[in-house]
């Protein structure tokens, strides 16, 4: 059967020897000639996915098709793909010419033909004068060009690039991005590009695959991913964003920050808890007030779209110049913080008004709401066991249960106490993911036993902080198992 896609990744799982899953049910279809970027933080499985396509790793489950042909078990040297490695992996015992010619010589291509094609490939990457240089005498950028020439000379159907620009400095990286894009156009082959740099992904790709913890979070064009992130992780990872908890009142009407707004989203049902994403550059900001007009003030009518929009107000808390725009934090009277980007600066202390157009409000389904749920069991000594630890529970909660009973444990996000010292908690764990929700932090804590729990807090934590977990006994609610 001939597939429409050049690469099909179907329900691929990859489990390492230590039992950890690097990929969980990854499905991805890539069209011929597409530039697809796999984007995610380190450890999200993006490189593993690339290595499975290249053949350096074999998927534990699922299959990978190239041009409709199953290559899941095929060794890398037989696959019609070539890889550009993160650290170039140029052969130190060969010069530039020999490095580039390596693949062709293995195939037994005639010498004059090899020479012609090496020259062409080196010209393509603007390295024509370097043929007989030792690779170690080249700069990082030059080495990467040679690595690209070495890969494309074999005319692969798919070029795999594993963070090829990660080791270059910023300016070099920007230049190479443009060159890669140009090269992709000229060659017309499929590029699969792995990066953790969201800006790079937005700049280069036809489509972006956002990954986290071995799972695909969202696949879409750069504008889709940016404007319509499907969950908090994507919204937070790609660009800056204000993420707030809200309620979808009905279609096209959402409530957050204690105000109601028009929006264009629908199909969430009525009075549903949702997450709201607003990009900082989508917020209109102007000086609030009636009397004092200063010379540098701008007529708000010029800058604020006309119409019956919901406005809200706050005071500028901080302002940082970012080159093109100012990035300001505005705090509302009811305690919400908004990040706002604008070409005009509003000094700290300024009272400002804000509004956002309905189409710039992105609504996402809430993944978790108010409570953590765990399976538990009543122990003989009147405690409840869950998350592999024993917890004290209030007497009235306990009244309905006998030792040995299975229970459903409910713990509000808000009520979990995190301790600085991990040994002060009943359990210890690590801060795994942080989301600022305008007026509180939404943390994901991963316990040492590998369970996740969600915690709302006003305290500031860092990714990877070790914490002790305490749950006050009156906050543990027990329900009968149905």
């Amino acid at each position, binding site marked *: 059967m001939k597939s429409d896609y050049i690469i099909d990744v179907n329900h691929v799982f990859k489990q390492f020897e230590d039992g950890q899953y690097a990929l969980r049910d990854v499905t991805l279809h890539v069209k011929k000639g597409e530039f697809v970027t796999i984007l995610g933080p380190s450890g999200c499985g993006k490189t593993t996915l690339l290595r499975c396509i290249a053949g350096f790793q074999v998927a534990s489950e699922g299959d990978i098709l190239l041009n409709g042909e199953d290559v899941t078990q095929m060794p890398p*040297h037989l696959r019609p793909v070539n890889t550009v490695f993160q650290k170039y*992996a140029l052969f*130190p*015992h060969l010069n530039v010419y020999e490095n580039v010619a390596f693949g062709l010589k*293995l195939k037994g291509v005639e010498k004059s033909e090899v020479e012609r094609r090496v020259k062409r490939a080196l010209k393509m990457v603007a390295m024509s004068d370097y043929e007989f240089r*030792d690779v*170690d005498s080249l700069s990082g950028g030059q080495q990467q060009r040679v690595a690209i020439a070495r890969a494309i000379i*074999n005319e692969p159907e798919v070029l795999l690039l594993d963070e090829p620009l990660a080791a270059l400095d910023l300016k070099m990286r920007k230049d190479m991005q443009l060159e890669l894009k140009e090269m992709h156009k000229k060659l017309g082959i499929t590029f699969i590009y792995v990066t953790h740099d969201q800006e790079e992904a937005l700049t280069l790709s036809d489509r972006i695959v956002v990954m986290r913890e071995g799972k695909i979070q969202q696949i879409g064009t750069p504008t889709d991913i940016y404007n319509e992130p499907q969950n908090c992780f994507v919204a937070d990872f790609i660009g800056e964003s204000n993420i707030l908890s809200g309620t979808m009142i009905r279609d096209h009407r959402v409530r957050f920050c204690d105000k109601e707004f028009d929006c264009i989203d629908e199909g969430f049902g009525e009075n549903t808890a949702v997450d709201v994403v607003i990009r900082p550059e989508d917020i209109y900001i102007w000086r609030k007030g009636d009397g004092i007009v200063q010379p540098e003030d701008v007529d708000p009518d010029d800058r604020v779209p006309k119409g019956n929009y919901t406005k809200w107000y706050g005071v500028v808390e901080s302002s940082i110049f970012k080159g093109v725009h100012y990035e300001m934090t505005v705090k509302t009277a009811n305690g919400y913080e908004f990040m706002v980007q604008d070409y005009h600066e509003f000094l700290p202390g300024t009272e400002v008004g804000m509004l956002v157009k309905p189409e710039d409000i992105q609504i996402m389904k809430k993944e978790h709401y108010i409570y953590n749920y765990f399976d538990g069991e009543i122990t003989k000594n009147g405690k409840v066991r869950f998350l592999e630890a024993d917890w004290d529970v209030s007497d009235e909660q306990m009244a309905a249960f006998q030792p040995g009973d299975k229970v459903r444990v409910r713990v509000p996000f808000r009520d979990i106490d995190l301790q600085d010292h991990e040994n002060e908690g009943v359990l210890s764990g690590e801060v795994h993911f942080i989301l600022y929700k305008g007026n509180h932090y939404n943390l994901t804590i991963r316990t040492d036993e590998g369970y996740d729990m969600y915690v709302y807090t006003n305290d500031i934590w860092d990714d990877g902080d070790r914490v002790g977990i305490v749950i006050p006994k009156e906050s543990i609610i027990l329900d009968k198992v149905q």
Partner: protein
Amino acid sequence: MKNFQKRTNWAWPYIIFLILLVILPLILIGIYAFTDLEGHFTVQNFVQFFSKNEAVNTFIYSIAIALLTTIICLLLGYPAAYIMAMKSFGTPQVMALLFILPMWINFLLRTIATVELFHMLNLPLGEGALLFGMTYDFLPFMIYPIYNTLQKMDKSLLEAARDLGANRRQVFTKVILPLSIPGIYSGIVMVFMPTVSTFAISELLTHNKITLFGSLIQRSFGEGGITMWNYGAALSLIMLIIIGATSFFGQQEEAGENMIR
């Protein structure tokens, strides 16, 4: 600065050691080799060596045995080092320890044990036993430098070669082998040099039936009394030149390799 000055003073014991036990003996060997018993300059000692067929034959035989040992060590040691470095089985640390373990025991003890082993198995002592014993003694010196270069090699190079269409054999011949040449050279030098001058092992393992160049030197000094010292010094000098040439050759090659890197 004062501290630094003081610290350089710490090197003096070793410098004295070096002068007394390395430089001075070398000068003495040079003087003895080119003088006769009365202390007059002569090349007679060298003439004596080159005119004696037996001595020259011993010399050539010693080099041949050393070469053979080196080749056997290379053939046995390379695969061992390769397997350890590519961690195809077991933990590499444990494997490395197992290979290095024999070096913990004095080589004379090991040689005597080898002799006993041959007696126990009713195997004759002689050339075969000599090669076996020398290989056993010097194998770790071959394995270790090769293991080191292979282990330090960037494994993504192997993936790059695979990616460019090389099968497993081609990955080895086109990438692994050329990149491990510096290790092979060190291994060769480290095995060849001591085996050329060996004598105790050969005496024990051949029951004194086979005389190696090292034994020749040893006898000149040990059994010949003071009258043979000048001749012994000449022999030592010849051996020094041979060993010096091998290690110089090795270094040249390594320097060449480093330039390519």
